[in-house]
Every structure is written in C-alpha cells, then in structure tokens.
C-alpha cells in the first residue's frame, strides 16, 4: 500500500475515532441527549472501504453507521447539527442519527430497520447499471442483518441482475445482545455467497493492508461489471448495542482478547512503520479535533426546526396548515 493511501485511511479512521469519542463525551456530560450506537472497534474497516471508492459512489448504511457516513465524507457540522436535532442538520433535524442522508457524498439511505438497506442498495445499483454511470453501491450492515429474509432476497436478485453492489458485512460478532455463534450456525457469513453464485471475500478487518486490498478487489469486481460481491470484514463491537447500555453479557475474557486486536493502535504502529512521525500523526488528530469542536459549536448554536416542518417534505407539495 502506498503512503498516500495509508495516510488517507489513517485520516478517515481517526475522523471516525475522534468523533466517536466526542459524541460519547457530549452524552456523558449531559450536553447531548440522544440514542447513539457507537461503532468503537469498527473504524478501520469502513475507512479502508471508503478510501477505495469515490465520493459519488452510493452508500447505504444502518443506525450503527455514523462511521460509514464520516468515512464517506459527510461534513461534521451538518452531521452534528442533525444529531442534535437542529434545522441546519443534513436532514433539517427530521431524520437524526439513525437516518442520516447526504446525497452530496453519496449517502443515500441510513435505515433504522435491520436488513432493509440491502434491497434498496440493489435499486441504486440497478439505476447505475441502466445508466452506465460507472458507480458502485456500498451497502453496510452487520452480522445480525444476515438472518432476515431481505438479505437472502437482495443477494439473489443482485447476482441475478449482475448489479454493481458490494454487500459489506462488518461482522462485529454481535446482533444486538446476541453473539454471532448464538444466531448463526455457519462459521462465517461469506460462505453464504456460494449459495447465490456470488463472489465472496473474507478479511481480517483489523489489518489495514488486508482490508484495503479486499475493498479494492471488491470495488474493481463490481465496477468492471463482474457482478456483486459479499465482503465480510471481521471486526469487533467493543461496547454495547447502544452507548450507555449494559453489556455485561459480553464475556470479559473475550472483550479482553478482542481489545488486543483493537485496530487503532495497530494502525498507528503501521503508520510509524511507514515513517510517519509522531508529530505528523498528532497534527492530523489535532486538525480533526478542531473540526469537531467547530462542528459541536455550530450544532449547539443552530436553531431548532419549526413546527411548520411537520407539513413540509411529507409530499412534494406542502400540506395545508
């Protein structure tokens, strides 16, 4: 991997990581009251994936998808204003954290319903195929989403139509409170690709170089018209289902074992190995922190949406008062 790509992945990863820290501290301090699904442990998988696609490629993600949106390029100020329910947010405060939409960076749908994004991703990819616009669609979901019927229907249809879509399973080992082995009998999700005649790629998502290579391979496959890919990146959800929730059901010894695989210190070491200096890394993080501080200020200083918004965007035409 060249230094430029590595730097790109590091920057995207740290934007995700610092934002997660920031939002958790805003919630703990009582400044922000919101349901927040932390992705601690999954920063690198999405950073490497988004480094392998273009800004105008489509993204569909889920409620645990703030890292996907950040890595794709959604600006912090619009994102934070939306999470804080302000009129200046991406969705005017009408969607919130679980429904971030930002077509300017390709973020077309964020769904709060597990598994629902996969059929929609097919539609985005279908439009690209018909238009021949060369775009690929990335559809992010967790291992928990692979046991709902929509997963099966979507993968079958995607392969049938040879759609340029990447089903990007971030296998974080938990579906809500249920461990992977307690909801699925096969050893890995990627084995299911064979059932649809689909290309499957399985990768250690905590290894930046392997993750990027897998992402690039999947993107090349989809973009060149060879059909969809099921890409399973192994990672770990280091906290509970939502921030603040009890996660004592996650065995402490397993958490400790997985914490040793934390992608953040590993990526940091990789950067140092590639002759990036401590000072350079600190400078990148300082810039991100400054952006986050500005975004927080922007969000909290922004107005709340007015009640008239209830009549707007239900239909194209405004509903009469």
């Amino acid at each position, binding site marked *: 991997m060249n230094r430029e790509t590595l730097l790109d992945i590091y920057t995207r990863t740290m934007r995700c990581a610092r934002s997660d820290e920031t939002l958790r501290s805003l919630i703990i301090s009582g400044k922000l009251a919101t349901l927040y699904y932390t992705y601690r442990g999954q920063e690198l998988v999405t950073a490497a994936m988004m480094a392998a696609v273009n800004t105008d490629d489509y993204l569909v993600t889920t409620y645990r998808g703030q890292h996907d949106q950040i890595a794709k390029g959604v600006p912090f100020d619009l994102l934070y204003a939306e999470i804080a329910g302000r009129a200046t947010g991406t*969705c005017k405060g009408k969607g919130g954290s679980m429904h971030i*939409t930002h*077509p300017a960076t390709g973020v077309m749908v964020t769904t709060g319903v597990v598994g629902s994004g996969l059929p*929609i991703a*097919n539609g*985005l990819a279908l439009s690209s195929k018909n238009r021949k616009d060369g775009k690929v669609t990335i559809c992010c979901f967790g291992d928990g989403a692979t046991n709902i019927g929509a997963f099966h229907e979507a993968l079958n249809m995607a392969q049938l139509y040879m759609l340029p879509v990447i089903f990007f399973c971030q296998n974080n080992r938990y579906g809500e409170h249920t461990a992977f082995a307690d909801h699925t009998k096969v050893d890995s999700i990627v084995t299911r690709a064979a059932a649809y005649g689909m290309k499957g790629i399985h990768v250690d998502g905590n290894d930046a170089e392997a993750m990027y290579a897998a992402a690039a391979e999947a993107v090349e496959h989809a973009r060149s018209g060879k059909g969809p890919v099921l890409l399973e990146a192994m990672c770990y959800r280091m906290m509970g289902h939502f921030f603040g929730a009890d996660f004592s059901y996650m065995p402490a010894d397993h958490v400790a074992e997985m914490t040793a695989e934390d992608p953040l210190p590993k990526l940091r070491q990789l950067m140092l190995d590639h002759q990036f200096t401590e000072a350079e890394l600190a400078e990148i993080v300082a810039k991100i922190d400054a952006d986050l501080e500005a975004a927080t200020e922007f969000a909290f200083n922004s107005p709340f949406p007015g009640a008239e918004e209830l009549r707007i*965007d239900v239909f194209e035409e405004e509903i009469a008062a």
Partner: protein
Amino acid sequence: MSKISMVQALNRAIDEAMAEDEGVILLGEDVAAKQGGGVFKVSAGLTEKYGEDRIRATPISEQAIMGACVGAALTGFRPIAEIMLMNFVTVCMDQIVNHAAKLRFMSGGQTNVPLVVRTTTGVGVGFGGQHSDMLEAWFAHVPGLKIVTPSNAADAQGLMRAAIACNDPVIFIENILCYGLQSEDPGPNHIVPLGKAAVAREGSDCTIITYGRTVLDALEVAGQLAEEGISVEVIDLRTIAPYDEATVLASVRKTGRAVVLHEAVKAYGTGAEIAARINEALFGQLKAPVQRLGGAFSAVPMANALEQAWIPTKDGIKSAVRSTMEWKL
C-alpha cells in the same frame, strides 16, 4: 367512438410513460415477454419495445422488488413495482411504510421516491382469503403515500400517467373484476390529476361516496332509485388519499345525506374517516347520519354464496340510501 379495456388502458399509459422517460422501469413477477407480459397481461408487448433492462421479471421476492424500486427511485428513476396481488404487499410493508413513504421527510427533502406500486385484488372471483383483500386503509394511514384506484378504463389510463409523473410514492390499486371493462377510448396522453374526485352521476337527495369497482354498483343503484323518485349523486373518489374533501363536502352540503361505500372491510375502513370528516364539517346541516357500507368482518370467503354475502350488495346500498331518506330528525 372506439372502446378500450382497462388492461389496454393501463398498458398504454405505461407504454407512453416509458417512451417519454428512460427512467420509467417496471419490476415484477412474470412481467417480461418471456413470462407472457404479466399474469394479467398489463405489460404485454413492452419488453419487445423497451428491453429487459427496463421490463425486469423478478424472482418471487417482494421485499427485493420493492427495495430495488425504492433505491432506483432515489436516483431519479420512476420505477413501477408490480405486486401481483394486494395481499402480497404484506410481505414488503417495511419497504413501503418505513422507506418509500418516509424517506423524503426523514431526509429533510434531500431525496424522494417517485414510485408507483401497481397491485390488483377484488372480491367476487372466488380467490379466497389471501388473494382478495382491499387494504387501502392501511396505506391511507401512512403519511407520505398517495392511494389511487380507478373505476373505469379511461380513468385507469389517466391516473396511471399522473401516478408515474408524481414525485412521491403512489399505491395504484386495480380490481381484477374491472380489467375487462370497456370505456370510451380517451385517446393518447390522457392524464387525470391525482387528488381530484369525479362526480360520476349528479343528483340532489343523497350522495354515495365510493371508489373502484363499487362505483359501478352505486351507479346502477342510482339508476334504479331514480325510478322511485330518489335522486342520487355518485362521487368516484379516484384518489383515496389525498382525499378530495372539497368535492365531497360540496355534494353533501347540497344533498344533506351521505352513504360511504367500499369493498374493503367496513370496520376501521376509509369509510369511517370519510364519515367522520363529513360530520366534523357539516354537523347540523345533515338530514340523516352518514351511513357506511363495506365488507363483513371476516376473511374474504371462497364459496360464491358466502362471498356475495360478504360484500355490500346492491340491495344493501339501496336500503342504506332509503334509510337516509326516511330518517326523522
């Protein structure tokens, strides 16, 4: 004047829209030429003209059909999802209710879903409990959806063009029993705007408000009651939601009496909403309570004898109108 059937009218509307806009695509089970152009032949001949990229036969996968149409719509396509029978929409309600209906609002207007869900149903052909339901009230309860159902071929053509042109999701309900109905041919490029009811027959004593197949029953009953000296006005809503309240209230203000009629189960049906809204607006001006007629509170039965007992009958409609005439305040 030449005649056109509802199937031909729908086919023509889709054909015209596809010729006009490359983004109009049709997805559904058996819809392509290889499968015969759909179970009811509404898409016959379209694959030959527009190709399999635009007329896509799908697996039996309603969630995948609806999701694909939602996704394509988000990029500016105008997909038509054919759900073979209305009961099968229950399989993809998540895509319709949580996504198609809400994405414009939840995105703050950044995206929209110009989607038409075509589906058919109908009581009276012995299809039984899982192939006959009219579920329009479920959808009318969801902000963000428009619901259309034509009663004749010309309206089917015009409403379909308007539905495809609409920038929001439209549930387009066809009735199996109406597919063969002939109307005067409205000619090409006929458009009937959404949200506008039609006065199907003028009258002065009582208003029947209805839509879809039961418009035919209402018109027949109105003709028979005229011989008894009762003048019935029949309103064909055409678009169930948004509801054309102005047309309904103007009529009921004139007649002072109203009967709301639909094929769907009466309990908690759209008739309850319409009756309530008439009462809210015209309480004190009504000469009788608003009457409601709808299907019985059971699954739609198979046996013809039971099916005929299940749906509102013409005699039942007459009785309802007469009861409003005889009501003593």
